[in-house]
């Protein structure tokens, strides 16, 4: 059975584009897990809320970029409030309590979105509509732009973490919360800020995804699930690993859909998840065991 080269090339591009948008969601999730051991089951719903805020802003301003910025800022503030009211009191408790809490938040947010914006999907119009020829396809430039934007946001996050005082605060708190506090780092503030950053990244991906798949109140679950697979495969709390895993899994799914239908291709990511848990439960990309 031969698969033509052009199809493979197209699926490679598709996989990379999807992978980078997924990496944007997953890096927020893994950052939050790394620093406060919170498994945030509502992360995908922050993507969804960001998408809706973006859709509403586009409808009133007509500007995609203003919409993306508004969504990121709104959801960052919302995330900070959410962290302070629900997760901060649970810090250091049994992980099950935070799983239940975030799962509850997820349900509340979905019902809120249904009540506020109704059951039908909203589409965010593409900010650029051009296409280019990719073999036999007219490939939309927007998809490429989305991938670049995701990569740029992840790159900015990396630089933020690597240089400057807040990056050091976040990395120190991630490694040893107690020692960070004893060194005068305001740990509760760092936790809230990191949650806000993760929420903003989720919201940005919701807006970026808007023109591709539309925004619905149930889209969050799918993002949560996929981001989780990525975070586990990449190694819980490992930012670089999550990004690589997002790209890897999206590429695998893209290639699989050459052979089976796209709906069946999703199975590939579950297989990757199960194999990882069986063979390398600490994740494929954990650099060195601490």
């Amino acid at each position, binding site marked *: 059975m031969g698969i033509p080269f052009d199809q493979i090339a197209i699926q490679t591009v598709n996989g990379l584009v999807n992978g980078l948008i997924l990496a944007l969601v997953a890096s927020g999730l893994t950052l939050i897990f790394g620093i406060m051991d919170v498994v945030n089951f509502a992360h995908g719903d922050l993507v969804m809320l960001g998408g809706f805020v973006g859709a509403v802003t586009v409808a009133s301003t007509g500007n995609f970029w203003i919409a993306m910025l508004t969504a990121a800022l709104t959801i960052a503030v919302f995330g900070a409030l959410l962290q302070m009211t629900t997760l901060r009191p649970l810090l250091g408790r049994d992980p099950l309590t935070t799983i239940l809490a975030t799962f509850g938040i997820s349900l509340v947010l979905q019902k809120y979105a249904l009540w506020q914006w109704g059951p039908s999907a909203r589409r965010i119009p593409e900010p650029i509509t051009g296409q280019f020829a990719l073999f036999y396809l007219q490939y939309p430039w927007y998809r490429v732009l989305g991938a670049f934007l995701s990569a740029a946001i992840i790159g900015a996050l990396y630089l933020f973490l690597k240089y400057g005082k807040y990056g*050091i605060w976040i990395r*120190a708190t991630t*490694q040893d919360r*107690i020692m960070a506090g*004893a060194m*005068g*780092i305001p*740990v509760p503030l760092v936790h809230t800020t990191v949650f806000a950053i993760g929420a903003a990244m989720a919201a940005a991906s919701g807006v970026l995804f808007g023109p591709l798949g539309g925004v619905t109140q149930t889209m969050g679950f799918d993002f949560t699930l996929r981001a989780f697979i990525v975070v586990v495969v990449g190694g819980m709390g490992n930012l670089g690993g999550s990004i690589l895993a997002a790209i890897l899994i999206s590429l695998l799914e893209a290639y699989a859909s050459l052979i089976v239908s796209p709906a069946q291709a999703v199975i590939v990511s579950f297989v990757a998840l199960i194999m990882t848990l069986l063979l390398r439960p600490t994740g494929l990309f954990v650099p060195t065991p*601490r």
Partner: protein
Amino acid sequence: MLRLDDIHTYYGKSHILHGVSLEVGPGEVVGLLGRNGVGKSTTLKTIAGLVRPAQGRVSFEGREVAGLPPYRLAHLGIAWVPEDRRVFKLLTVAENLRTGLDRAGMTEARRNELLDKVYRFFPFLAERRRQAGGTLSGGEQQMLAIARAMMLEPRIILLDEPTEGLMPRMVSQIREIIERLHEEKVAILLVEQNVPLTLEATSRCYIMEKGVVQHEAPSRDLKANHDIVRQYLGV
């Protein structure tokens, strides 16, 4: 300067400290001796705000500080150097030091001044400033942990078993560091298993047993009177 009155601390349901009272004067180097598991480390953690006392008072420079979060206590001038050092392993040496430098009211000049001072104190840290903390040897990590605490410009350092597992050359270096800190008028509350070193380095010692302070004496007297040391510490 630092005063504990009848401190009771619990870990879950287990009662660890049964009414600890002690005092450290400004610039004073005080030892806290006792066998394993009598609550010495817990006493230090309680002072640093990492464990909240169920009962009792901790006052520091005239104000009640029990219940304040650790980062506030660090800003007030209480530095904690834990038993297991807890260097940030994935941060570079310079970044480890920097964790203590970004406080309100710090200027760039003051930051550099403090760094220069610590690099003069520990020249090897300057050479390895770009190296990850986790790549240093045990003794070097201990020095880094102390250097990092010095970044807070503390009024008191709570030093928990700094010589544990170190080779003799490093132990005498720790002894020198304590001496230098004393000259700089930094108070130290030293928890140590190494009794001779503690009696050398401190002016006064408390001896703990089963979660309370059982005995207090000038270190000079303890050196002369082996019976007490033997009675409480079995050495």
